[in-house]
């Protein structure tokens, strides 16, 4: 029981974050992907990545509102898994789709706005991921903490990437963009002071 209380959230979050990958692997294994499986993998890893980025982004404001410790864990783990799906997303493109063909890649990368946006998001997330791993070590590197703020432009770029590569039906990418914009907006100091009850609660608990 104590174990569950201590580790329950950790286990549940990990399982939930791995499930989409498992689902994708099972679909591929059972031949349930479309005639163009590379595109399925591309679309699904991209979707999972932006879902997890959004969840991670929601962790902090929800923590301010609700004060559950597992929300801070959610923020961290969702962010790490999001980066994992981003890596799969990029690897699928470069390896399975383009077969490391640099000529084809070069012809596409620098001329497509959606790829520039996606690539920029990836490059911004890379140091955040590395810093997050380093901070996890016993000796946190203090100077690296500001790196997490790179997540904000990265997530916005990911949303732009999603919009730009969608043909015709923009409802889903626009919905993500709206949620992401809201989650960034509430971080503005004067908005935060309205919803951040975590400080107050701590004071109450201390008394």
């Amino acid at each position: 029981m104590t174990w569950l209380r201590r580790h329950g959230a950790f286990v549940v979050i990990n399982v939930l974050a791995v499930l989409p990958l498992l689902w994708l692997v099972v679909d591929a294994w059972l031949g349930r992907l479309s005639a163009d499986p590379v595109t399925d993998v591309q679309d699904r890893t991209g979707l999972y990545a932006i879902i997890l980025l959004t969840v991670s982004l929601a962790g902090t404001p929800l923590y301010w509102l609700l004060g559950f410790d597992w929300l801070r864990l959610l923020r961290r783990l969702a962010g790490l898994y999001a980066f994992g799906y981003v890596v799969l997303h990029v690897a699928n493109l470069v390896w399975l789709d383009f077969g490391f063909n640099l000529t084809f890649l070069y012809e596409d990368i620098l001329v497509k706005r959606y790829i520039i946006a996606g690539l920029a998001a990836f490059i911004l997330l890379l140091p955040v991921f590395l810093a997050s791993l380093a901070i996890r070590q016993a000796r946190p590197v203090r100077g690296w903490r500001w790196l997490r703020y790179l997540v904000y432009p990265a997530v916005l770029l990911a949303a732009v990437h999603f919009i730009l590569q969608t043909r015709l039906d923009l409802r889903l990418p626009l919905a993500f963009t709206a949620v992401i914009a809201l989650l960034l907006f509430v971080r503005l100091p004067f908005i935060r002071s309205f919803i951040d009850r975590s400080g107050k609660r701590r004071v109450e608990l201390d008394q």
Partner: protein
Amino acid sequence: MKKIKSSEITPEKLFLSRRKFLAGLGTVAAGAVLTACAGETTTPSTTETSTTTTPATTPTGTTTTTTPGPEAQTPYDDVISYNNFYEFSLNKTDVAGLARDFKTSPWTVEVGGLVGKPQTFAIEDLEKQFPSEERVYRMRCVEAWSMVIPWLGFPLGKLLQAVEPLATAKFVRFETLYDPERMPGQNMPFLDWPYVEGLRLDEAMHDLTIMSTGLYGKPLLPQNGAPLRLVVPWKYGFKSLKSIVKIDLVEEMPKTTWPLASPSEYGFYANVNPGVSHPRWSQSSERRIGDSRIPTLLFNGYEEEVAGLYAGMDLRTSF
């Protein structure tokens, strides 16, 4: 699925020599199955009875092809399950299911406009009047994927000749069925329905341009545009509209669906051209369904046959 030599992609000269005329659509059960020049036989797994004609006398290596590398025909199951047909759904894998009960009989095609003999054809009469032949074409989607499909059909030019175009006719305008009850995608506001496409008259009269009624020796399924669709192999797939009900010869360049929806992304000509970029998809290379990424060729590899149509035109501005 056996690999078939590159010579499988039928160059114009060759398919002219191996035209197979089906004796009307009633006998499509005994559909012709195109065979490889090398004598290999490809039979779709779902074909029940098929007469296989092997042009054994065609010597290997005498054919020339504009496409490098081996190009196998795309498996039948992929051709009928991966479809861009927004009249049913934006999701390519949902189309086949949504179109399953789509009735394609009775069906009439109205051919008119600037012609001497406007006619409305019942689809059965059309098929009788213009016997089908098989054409193996590459099909290149603007979304940077492609297939190789053995179509059944007849040259559009023959149909146009039958209605006697007037001298004032410069373009052909095509229309897909508009019936939101039968085509649920038409209830969505993403595009202006009905779907309209167009060709310049000389493009329409070109021998490579066909009206298709079948593929892989069988009648078209609804998801592939039954009962009658256009196939223009040197243009992006969206030009080859499906489930056609109306063909008009007109004087002005018709306003077509995709250029209306997004003029910067889609042009009237929509010739496959690796030199004209698209904001979303690679036009310099493509993913061959069931195979790997290959370079995209000018005019989808049909340059020799069709480049003359565009002599003197700037293909970058007239894209």
